C-alpha cells in the first residue's frame, strides 16, 4: 500500500472535502449481507463499510447461569484482529485493541437490553443458553467500531435457537425451536476529531490521524446506552453535545437502512 503524505490528508480535511471525495460527515457505502453463511452459525452477517469487511457469527451453546442471575442467558462477545485483515494485526492472544473493540460492541448490546436474556433460561440455576458472538475482521480499512457493532446487531437479528434436550444434555443444531427474542436494536456511531474537525467513518489512513474518538450506542428512542472515548486528545463538554447530535442523526440513517433489508433467511 503506497502511503499518502499525512499533511495532504489533513489539508484536505481542513478544506472540508476528503481525498476520496467524501464530505467530513459522510459514510462510505455500507453493504449488509445477513446470513452470509447459513449452515453452521445460528446467526451471521457480513458488513462492508467501504473496503472494511467484518464477518460476525453467533453460535448458541448451553451452560450454567451466573449465580446472581440464575434465570438469564449469557452473552459472550469476542473479537479477532487476525493478520488476514492487516499485517500489523499479529496473531496471538487478543491485545488491547481487540479487547476494547469486543467490549465496546458488547456494552452497546448489553446496556440496550437488546437480548431478552430471561427467554434464554432453560432451567433456572441449571441450564441457560449462551450466546457466543464472534467478530472476525477480514479486511481492514478503518472504522472497525461501527462496522463490528452493525454486524453484531444484524447477526443477532437473524439468530435462531436450536433445540435442547435436558435429559441427554444434547443440542440439536438441525432443529430450531425459535428465534432469539430481541427487545431493542442499538445502533453504534463513532465520531472522530482530526485536526479539530469532526469526521465520520475514516479509512485506515485517516484513522491513523485521529486525535480523539467518541462512540455512542443509540436505542430506538434515541437514548444513549453506551459510550466510549478513545484517542489521546481531550474533548470539551460542548464538543460532546455536538458530537452526540451529529452521531444521533447518523444513527437514524443507518437505522433506516436496516429497516429496508431483509434480515431473515
Amino acid at each position, binding site marked *: 500500500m503506497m502511503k499518502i503524505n499525512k499533511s495532504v490528508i489533513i489539508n484536505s480535511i481542513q478544506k472540508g472535502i476528503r481525498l476520496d471525495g467524501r464530505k467530513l460527515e459522510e459514510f462510505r457505502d455500507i453493504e449488509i449481507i445477513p446470513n452470509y453463511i447459513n449452515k453452521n452459525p445460528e446467526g451471521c452477517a457480513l458488513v462492508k463499510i467501504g473496503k472494511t469487511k467484518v464477518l460476525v457469527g453467533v453460535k448458541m451453546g448451553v451452560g450454567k447461569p451466573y449465580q*446472581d*442471575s440464575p434465570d438469564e442467558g449469557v452473552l459472550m462477545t469476542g473479537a479477532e484482529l487476525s493478520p488476514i485483515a492487516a499485517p500489523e494485526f499479529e496473531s496471538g492472544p*487478543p491485545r*488491547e485493541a481487540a*479487547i*476494547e473493540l*469486543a*467490549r465496546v460492541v458488547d*456494552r452497546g448490546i*448489553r*446496556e440496550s*437490553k437488546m437480548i431478552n436474556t430471561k427467554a434464554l433460561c432453560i432451567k433456572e440455576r441449571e441450564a441457560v443458553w449462551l450466546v457466543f458472538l464472534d467478530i472476525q475482521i477480514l479486511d481492514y480499512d478503518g472504522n472497525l467500531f461501527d462496522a463490528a457493532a452493525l454486524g453484531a446487531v444484524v447477526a443477532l437479528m437473524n439468530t435462531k435457537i436450536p433445540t435442547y434436550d435436558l435429559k441427554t444434555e444434547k443440542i440439536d443444531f438441525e432443529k430450531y425451536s425459535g428465534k432469539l427474542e430481541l427487545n431493542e436494536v442499538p445502533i453504534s456511531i463513532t465520531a472522530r476529531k482530526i485536526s479539530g474537525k469532526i469526521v465520520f467513518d475514516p479509512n485506515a489512513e485517516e484513522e491513523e490521524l485521529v486525535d480523539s474518538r*467518541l462512540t455512542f450506542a443509540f*436505542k430506538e428512542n*434515541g*437514548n*444513549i*446506552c*453506551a*459510550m*466510549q*472515548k*478513545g*484517542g*489521546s*486528545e*481531550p*474533548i*470539551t*463538554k*460542548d464538543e*460532546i*453535545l455536538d458530537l*452526540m*447530535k451529529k452521531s*444521533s442523526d447518523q444513527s437514524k440513517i443507518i437505522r433506516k437502512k436496516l429497516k429496508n433489508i431483509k434480515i431473515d433467511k
Partner: protein
Amino acid sequence: MAKGLDIKLIKNGKRLDGRDMEEMRPLKMELGVLDRADGSAAIELGETKVIAAVYGPTKLHPQHRQQPKKAVLSVRYQMLPFSTTDRCRPGPNRRSIEIGLVIKKALEPIIFLEEFPRADIQIEIEVIQANASTRVTGLTAASLALADAGIPMKGLISACAVGKIQDKLILDVAGAEDSYGGADFPIAMINGGDEITLLQLDGDLNQKEMKPALDLAQKGCKILFDQQKNVLKNTYKVGDQK
C-alpha cells in the same frame, strides 16, 4: 449486573448510604505512601481504596519499543484478589486491560512526554478495596502520583462517576447504585475544567440528560481537584499559587 431493577435506591430523599444526590463519599488523599516508587499516592473514597505508583522516566527497554521523540507511558490497573466481594483471580483480564488502556489515554494529554525521548514512564494502580468508582479513583491517584514523582505536567486529572437512580442524576456511584442503578458514567477532566480525557457510559441516558450529567461530573471533578491541590500544597508546603 441487573441494572434498572426495581429496587428503591432513594429513601426519604436520601441515597441508601444517607448521601444527597450530588454528594461524594468521604475522601482522603495521601502522597508518597510508598518509599521505593518515584512517586505514589493513595486515595480512599468511602470504602474504595487505591494506591498508584510511578516509576520513571527511565530509559525504556527493550530498545525497539522506544519512541525517538517522546516517552512511552505504560499503565497497569489491577484489582487485588481480596479487593472484591468474590475473590478475583490475580493477573490481567479483559476488563483490567481495557481500563489500563483508557486510563493511559486519559493521562497522555497532560504529561509532557516529549521532554523524555526514548524513556519509559510506568504507572502501577492497585485497587486495594473496591466499592465502585475504582477506575476513576485509580486515575485520580495516578495523576497525584505523577505530581509526586515530579513529572512535568500541564495539569492534574480528576475523575469521578456520575450515576442515575430513579431518574435522578447522582454523583459518585457506590454500593447498590452500581449494581441496580440506571447508569454508570465515569468521566475525567483536566484541572476540573472543561476538557474531558476519559469518558465511558454503561446505562441509559436521555440525550437531554447529557449536559446536566456532564455538569454534575464537573462538579465532582472540581471537588477532587481542590483536594488534589490541597494535598500537594500541604505535602510540599508551598504557597497556594494556583
